[in-house]
């Protein structure tokens, strides 16, 4: 299917995109890689009147080693994250998780900023960013602000970004700690039925987050607390689904998702050497 008609604006800078958003408000949508937005528009589940294309903001395509953290421009494609040596050396979990997103064609187009800003609980990438404790940088009409990943995901496909803000950068604390990622799906290319990211952070704390277990991407807080209290992987994984409100769909019942969360969390923790 072909999307409903819209007006097209090609932004040549983040400021231009912000100005366009400020002018058109809720009628406008940013277009980055388009691999979440265009499928929705093709089914007419989204019908923005104005599409603001930020896909050519080349100054937001970068991966920088900033010593204690890695800074990734919002328009950086999954393919570039997946193949980055800086990512592999300093935030390895993110590289691994990104390599499991969709298929090569999807990874040639989709961007890290789009994957975060879409706020999809089924997306793999937010789980890595939560586990690693990332900070998101947003630019709006009144300047730039930093948002902790813990304050970013507000509801199903809803984030802390205001309608006139553009996500510009993702900052991920560096760690050489071990990590694990588990994604359970039935067929190649599919989204996760449930997934789990776990990472030993530089402060020696352990970050654990779940995919598709809640209306938002979610931290497995009970598991993290159990680990901090000295529990082993198996024991900590038992409480992985606590505080999660998963949905039931064609793939899985609520109980099955809770079961998967426990099993995948145990495996991810074991892979992270816990």
């Amino acid at each position, binding site marked *: 299917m072909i999307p409903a008609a819209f007006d097209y604006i090609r932004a040549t800078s983040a400021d231009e995109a912000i100005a366009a958003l400020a002018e058109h408000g809720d009628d406008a949508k940013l277009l980055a890689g388009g691999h979440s937005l265009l499928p929705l528009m093709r089914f007419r589940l989204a019908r923005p009147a104005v599409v603001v*294309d930020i896909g050519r903001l080349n100054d937001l395509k970068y991966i920088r080693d900033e010593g204690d953290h890695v800074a990734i421009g919002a328009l950086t494609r999954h393919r570039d994250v997946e193949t980055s040596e800086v990512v592999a050396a300093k935030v390895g979990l993110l590289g691994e998780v990104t390599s499991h997103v969709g298929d090569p064609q999807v990874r040639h187009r989709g961007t890290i900023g789009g994957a975060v800003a879409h706020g999809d609980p089924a997306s793999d990438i937010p789980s890595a960013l939560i586990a690693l404790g990332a900070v998101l940088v947003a630019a709006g009409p009144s300047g730039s602000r930093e948002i902790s990943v813990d304050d970013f995901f507000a509801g199903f496909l809803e984030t802390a970004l205001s309608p006139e803000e553009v996500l510009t950068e993702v900052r991920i604390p560096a760690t050489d700690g071990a990590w694990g990622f588990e994604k359970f799906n039935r067929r190649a290319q599919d989204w996760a039925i449930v997934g789990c990211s776990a990472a030993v952070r530089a402060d020696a704390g352990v970050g654990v987050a779940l995919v598709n277990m809640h209306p938002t991407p979610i931290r497995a807080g009970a598991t993290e607390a159990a680990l901090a209290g000295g529990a082993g992987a198996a024991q900590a994984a038992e409480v992985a689904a606590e505080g999660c409100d998963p949905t039931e769909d064609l793939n899985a019942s609520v109980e099955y998702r809770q079961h998967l969360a426990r099993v995948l969390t145990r495996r991810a923790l074991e892979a992270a050497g816990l």
Partner: protein
Amino acid sequence: MHWRMKAVERVSVTINGAEYSHEVEPRTLLVNYIREQAGLTGTNIGCDTSSCGACTVHLNGESVKSCTLLAVQADGEDILTIEGLADGERLHPMQESFRECHALQCGYCTPGMVMAAVSLLKENPSPSEREVRLGLEGNLCRCTGYHNIVKAVLHCAAGASATNGGAQ
């Protein structure tokens, strides 16, 4: 104000080395542009959900699903479709490998499959069988069971086709 806003947009692209330029509605999908405006119908459409890969073309040398791009997103870029792969009458080694290994039956998935496979070998010139299977996970085939497709890609990677070094 540098940006433009109007009901139609001009799209100028290079497809298989030739220049094309048309006015299109912004909502025009790249696959429809390639098939209907440029008249190159080798690229197929197999689904509405970005899943099947039948529409795979190369954008600046990398595989993309042309049903999940707007034509305006490709403005100014370089596109390669299945029609541009062969060198005159001489098949591209991947096409020749598909022929030699019987990697197609109905052929509907084949243009996308071949384009995805060529992109895969550019990124990973000597993949393992598992890497080929993962590398083609965005392409569905309803006929072959994939077995001979994987064989063809490995055959091509090994330089074993008649057009890339193998026995004539």
